């Protein structure tokens, strides 16, 4: 450990703005990408689940469009 106090660590020898903006934005982008991918996966699974349901019970659920799409 090279820092003697918490505030010294935060201050980064006077370069706090440059260092923390670099690390902060990088972290935000990388974590954000993972969150977006998780959301996309959930959306895809929901859409597919609806598509499969529509095919199983053609008379009760689903639009004609999705059924045709599924049969392709």
């Amino acid at each position, binding site marked *: 450990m*090279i820092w003697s106090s918490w505030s010294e660590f935060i201050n980064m020898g*006077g370069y706090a703005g440059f260092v923390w*903006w*670099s690390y902060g934005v990088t972290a935000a982008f990388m974590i954000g*990408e993972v969150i977006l*991918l998780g959301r996309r996966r959930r959306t895809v699974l929901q859409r597919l689940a609806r598509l499969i349901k529509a095919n199983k019970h053609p008379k009760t659920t689903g639009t004609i469009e999705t059924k045709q799409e599924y049969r392709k």
Partner: protein
Amino acid sequence: MANSRFWLYFSSPKTFYPFAGKLVPWCAGVAVVLTVIGLYLGLLVTPPDYRMGNSYRIIYIHVPAVWMSMLIYMVMAGWAAVGLIWNVKLAEMMAGALAPTGAMFTFIGLWTGALWGQPTWGTYWVWDARLTTYLLLLFLYMGFIALRSAIDDPRRASKASALLAIVGAINVPIIYFSVKWWNTLHQPFTVAPGQESKIDPTMLWTMLIMVFAFWAYAIAVALLRIRSEILEREKNASWVAELLDSSQDTSSEDNIAQEKSAQGDRA
């Protein structure tokens, strides 16, 4: 030939989908562990630079991000070429899955570079060869992504964007050698193969740990993305229906229930 059978096996989305699913947690785990070690060493252990003080700590994310952005571009162009030449659907999807992550790393490279340039050179930006060709890399990524989403037919979109990716690949060696060929404000190679490193070994190791962390991260997110892309593009394939049918009672139904309760909470 066993070798060609191996590649054929993984060139089918049906077999690649579960394989990628098994790989993701491993890559993610490696990425998290290496990032924690790298950040600990980079922010708490390594000494300040004798000239740049603590501003040099940006190196631990700047260099890995820039390396990854160029490497991902070459891998992306390679998969795009495979998809174009041998008409392999999975290779096209692989190229598409890598592009957003590559673009993100390019932006991080530019962003951290600007924030490092100000305290070191006294300017956030300069139109020198290294910085300008590197900005071009971001535009190539954006063009690739835009072209893919602009064409409705996924096969045609992949072919058109593959050409752009392959032609644009010439930019990557230009970025790499720009500091050697032209007089740039950006410093020449600090670390390069076949040349003794000009930075302290503990700093070098910390940087390399972060490089491998970003590497594992990039593989994990690209695999996550390609899994969604496979489901989207293969939505009419029977194996997708079977796969979801067997897991519907657990995962996807749960997700729908969760989503509904979340919507209820919001309302």
